[in-house]
C-alpha cells in the first residue's frame, strides 16, 4: 500500500509549445515533472504539497545531445543513462559521466534527467557540481522567447531559481575544455551505491605553462544550493602546480560553504571532509603530469 495517495492532476502536453501555453495560462499552478524520480518519492511519503503536475515526457524538443566544435548541448530531458552512454561526454566531461553513474540506481538513471536534477534544486544533487566545474550555461524558454543564464547564477537560494513561472529549462550547454585540463569528481555518499551525497566536489582546471590558468570547483550538499568554491579557487588560480598553497585553499573553502546538521550527516563532518577532499583534489592536481 502507498503511504499517501493525494489527489493530483497530471497534464501530459504533446509538445513543448503546448506545455509552455499551459504554464502561461495558469501561471504558477503547475509543477513540471520530468523523470519524476525525486517527486515520486515525496509524493509517496505524503510530503509533496503540489497537486498539479505537467508531465514533459512527450516534449521531444527537450531531448537529445548535440555536439558542435566548441560545445555539447543537452536537452533538459537527457537521462543519466544517455549521459553515461555518450562518447563525447566521456571525452570532454569525465566528471559528468562519474556523477551520472553515481546517481541513484540504474533504474533511476534510466528515468532521471539532467534538467530535472537542476530544476529540482536539491543542494545534494549529483550532477550540478560537475556542471558548475565546467562553466555551464542553461537555456530557458517561455512563450516570450529564450534566454541564457550562467548556471552558477541560476540557483539563488534554497530551492530558489532564476526561472520565471512561465519558463522551462530547455537545454544545458557546456563548453568543451580547451588545452590541457585536469578533472576531479568525488561524491561522499551514505554508502557505495544508491546513496544521497553528504559532500560532493567536482573540479576542472586548465593548465598553461605549468600554472593553473583556469579553475572551477563545484560543491554539493555543503550549502543551500550547489555552489562554486570561489574563495578556494582564487587561492589556487595562477599558481604553479609544484607550489599549490593547499592549506591556504582549505582555509579559504570555509568561506565558500555553510554546511548544516541533518538526517544524513553533521555540519562538522561536512566542513572537515570537504576540506580534506579539496586537499586530496589539489594534491592530485599538483602531481598531475602536463
Amino acid at each position, binding site marked *: *500500500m*502507498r*503511504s*499517501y*495517495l493525494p*489527489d493530483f492532476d497530471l497534464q501530459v502536453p504533446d509538445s513543448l509549445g503546448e506545455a509552455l501555453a499551459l504554464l502561461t495560462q495558469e501561471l504558477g499552478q503547475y509543477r513540471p515533472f520530468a523523470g519524476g524520480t525525486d517527486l515520486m*518519492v515525496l509524493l509517496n*511519503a*505524503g510530503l509533496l504539497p503540489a497537486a498539479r503536475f505537467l508531465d514533459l515526457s512527450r516534449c521531444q524538443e527537450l531531448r537529445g545531445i548535440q555536439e558542435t566544435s566548441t560545445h555539447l548541448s543537452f536537452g533538459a530531458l537527457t537521462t543519466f543513462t544517455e549521459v553515461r552512454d555518450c562518447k563525447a561526454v566521456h571525452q570532454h566531461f569525465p566528471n559528468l559521466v562519474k556523477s551520472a553513474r553515481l546517481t541513484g540506481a540504474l533504474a533511476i538513471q534510466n528515468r532521471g534527467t539532467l534538467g530535472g536534477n537542476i530544476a529540482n534544486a536539491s543542494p545534494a544533487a549529483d550532477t550540478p557540481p560537475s556542471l558548475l566545474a565546467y562553466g555551464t550555461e542553461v537555456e530557458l524558454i517561455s512563450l516570450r522567447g529564450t534566454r541564457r543564464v550562467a548556471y552558477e547564477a541560476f540557483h539563488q537560494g534554497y530551492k530558489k531559481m532564476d526561472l520565471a513561472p512561465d519558463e522551462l529549462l530547455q537545454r544545458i550547454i557546456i563548453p568543451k575544455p580547451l588545452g590541457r585540463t585536469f578533472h576531479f569528481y568525488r561524491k*561522499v555518499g*551514505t*554508502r*557505495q*551505491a*544508491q*546513496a*544521497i551525497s553528504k*559532500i560532493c566536489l567536482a573540479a576542472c582546471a586548465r593548465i598553461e605553462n605549468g600554472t593553473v590558468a583556469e579553475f572551477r570547483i563545484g560543491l554539493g550538499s555543503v550549502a543551500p544550493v550547489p555552489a562554486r568554491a570561489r574563495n578556494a579557487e582564487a587561492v589556487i588560480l595562477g599558481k604553479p602546480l609544484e607550489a599549490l598553497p593547499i592549506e591556504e585553499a582549505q582555509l579559504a573553502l570555509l568561506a565558500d560553504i555553510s554546511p548544516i546538521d541533518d*538526517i*544524513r*550527516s*553533521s555540519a*562538522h*563532518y561536512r566542513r*572537515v*571532509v570537504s576540506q*580534506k*577532499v579539496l*586537499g*586530496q583534489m589539489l594534491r592530485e592536481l599538483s602531481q598531475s603530469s602536463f
Partner: protein
Amino acid sequence: MIGAPAIRKEGRAKVLGSTCYTDDMSAEGALHGATVRSQIPRGILKGIHFGEGIPWNEFVIVTAADIPGKNRVASIVHDQPFLVGIGEEITHPEQPVVLLAHGDRQLLVKARKAVRLEVEELPAVLDLQSSLDLTQVIYGTNNLLKEIHIRKGEPDSVWSQAAHVIEGEYRTGAQEQMYLEPNAMLAVTERGDPNAQVTVYGSLQCPYYVHGALKQLFDLPDDQVRVIALEMGGAFGGKEDYPSVIAGHAALLSWKSGKPVKLVYDREEDLVCTTKRHPSRTRIKTAFDTEGKFLALEIDFVLDGGAYATMSPVVLSRGALHSTSVYCCPNVHIHARAAATNTPPSGAFRGFGAPQSLFAMERHMDVCATQMGMDPVELRRKNFLKIGDSTATGQIIQENLDLGGLMDRVLKEIGYHDKQKAFAAHNATDDPIKRGVAFSVFMHGCGFTGSGEATMASVAGVEGLADGSVSVLAASTEMGQGKNTVFSQIVAEALKLPVDMVNTAIVDTKYVPNSGPTVGSRTTMIVGKLLEDAAYGLKQSLIQHGFLKEPYSPEAFKEAVQKAHARLGSIKSYAQFHKQPHIVWDDASYRGDAYPTFSWACYAAEIAVDTVTFEVKVEDFVAAQEVGRVVNPVLAAGQIEGGVAQGIGWGLWEDVVSNQGRMVNNQMTNYIIPTSADLPRIRVIFLENPHPAGPGGAKGIGELPMDGPAPALLNALQNALGPLRLDEVPMTPERLLTRYEEVYGG
C-alpha cells in the same frame, strides 16, 4: 538427506513470482484498515475528535471501548494495550488509539489525517540515562522492565590483588530488521455466540503467540480462534511479537464491521512503529593476573526497552548470559537491567540481546590486550572456555571444545599475521587509506534460555497422507530461512525417503500443533529433533500394524502409508519436548544450564578506512563456525552470509535517528542498510561436530552470524587507526571522524 543441498521447497514459486503474500490475498468485500497513532511521547488521552469533510458514517471506527475481551496484548507481561482508551495514559508517540476501515484506501488516508486527539501532555523520558536516573517514573516504581543478577565467586575480593584492572563502556544503537515485506494481516471474523470465529492470515513468525493474543482480546476459547501463517518476505525477529498487535487491530475492525479487513503497513509506518533491536550500554570492569588470565569480571548491562515489556525480559536474559563471551572467569557479577522509555517498544531481532553484550566484551578484549601490551590472539587463547570449565551461571562445558583451533583456522584463512605486518608498514606511509585486520570469538546459545523449552513443552508431528507422502505438522514458519526444506530433509533422513516425498503442511493453528515460536535458533535443533522422533514413531507404528517391513524401499513405504491411510483414515505421529534430566536450571538464582548447547564461532574482518572521508570498506570477511552438523550447506551458508551482512550494517551504517522518540529517517533512502556494493565476499566455513541434542547432530545457526561482525570490524578499525575510542556501533564516518580528532587533533 541431512547434509545435502536440497532445493528450497518454496523456491520455484518465489522465482516465478507466484508466491502469495498477505497483501496478495483478496477476500470478498474486504475493507482496508488504518491506524491513528498518538504522535506525542507521553500524556493522558482526553478526547477523540473526528474532523469535517469526511463521510464518517461510511467508516468502521474502533476505539478501546469496542474491545470485547481484555485490552492487553498477551505477552510475557500483559502491559501493552491494543488501543489507548479515553482517560488512559499514552506512553509512546506511535501508540494506536483509533482504528479505521473503509473500502477506499485514498479516503482512508484522508480520514486518518482528519482524526484529532485531545491530549494532556506529560513530561517524557526519551533516553536510557534519564530512565535510570528516574527523571520521571513512567513504568512501575523504578522504570525497570526486568533486572537480573548473575553471580559466580567473589569478584570484590579480587580487584585489589589484580595485576591489571581495566574498565570500559560500550554502546550499541537500535536496528531495524528491514524485512522486504512490511507487516500485514487479513482478518475474517464471524460474530454470534456460540459460533463466533476469529481467523487471521498474515505475515508472522509465531502463530500461537497471535492465537493467544486474539483469545485474550476477544475472550474466546482455543477452537474459536484460528491463525494461518502465510509466506513471509523476511522477519528477523521483527514479526515475533508485533504481529499480535496488528492481528488484533485487523480482527477488531472485522469484528465490528462484519467484513474481512486487511491491514497492511507501508514502509514508513512499519519503520516508525514496529519493534527494533534494543539500544544498549555495557560497562565492563575486568581484572587480570600478570599472565593475562581473567581474575574477575563485573558487567553492568542495560537495554532500552521502550514503553512496554514486550520481549525485553528474555532479550535481557540472553544478552546477560552472553555477556562474558567465550571466556572462563572464576569471579563474575553481571547486573542486567532493561529500562523503560517513552519510545516505541524494542523487540526481537536476530541475536536477541547477544549481539549487544558480545560487541562490548569482544571489543573490550582488544582494548585490554592493547592496554596490557599483549597480542589479542594470545589474550583470548589464555582465557577460552574448554571442556570441564564452568560459565558464569555454573554451566559445565561438556563438549570437547577447541576454540583455539577455531581461531587459528580463521586467522590462517584471512592471513592475519602476514597482513598485520604488511598493514603496519603500509599505515606508516602517507597513503590516506589505512588498513586493518582483526577478529572476534563468540557463541550463541541454541534454543530458549534456561527452563524455556521445558516450560513450553513444544509438540510437532508427521502425517501420512492418502497419496503415500509424508506431511510435516509444526507451527514453525518459513520466513526465508529454509524451514520447509530443512524439516523435510530431517524427516526424509529419519524415514530413509527422498526429500520430495516429504512436504510441510500449511501452518494453520487448526491443523498443526504448537511447536513453539520460530525464534531463538531453535527451529532446526529443537523442533527438528521432535520431528525426527515423530518420524521414527510413524515408522514404528507402520511396522507394528503390519503395513511395513524393514528394510524397505521408498516405494514400499509409500504403499504402506497408502494402505494404512485407506484402512485407518488418518495416521499421525507426534513428539513432545521433555526436559533432559541432566539439564538443570534455576530461574530464581540464574544458576545452571542456560542453554542445552551453544554454537561457536570466530569471525575475522579486513577493512580499509579512507582518512579523507572516514568511509570504511570491508575488504575481506571470514566466518567460521562450529554448528554441530549442517543440514543443508547451501541454506546454511546463505544464513551466515545474510547474518554477516546485517552485522556489518549494524556495525557501520544502520543508525535510527529519532526526534522526540519518533524515528525520522524512516525510509530506505535515509536508513542505510548495505547494498552488494558495500559488502565483501563473505567466506563461510563450517566445522562440524555433531551434537546429540539436535536432529542428525545439528545445532542452531540462525542468530549466530549477527553476533560477530560488529566487534571484528571495530577491532580492525583499531588495528588500522590506533587505539581510538571505538566504543559504539554503528561507527558511522561522522562518529569515526570525531574519535579520530580526539587522538590526532582537528
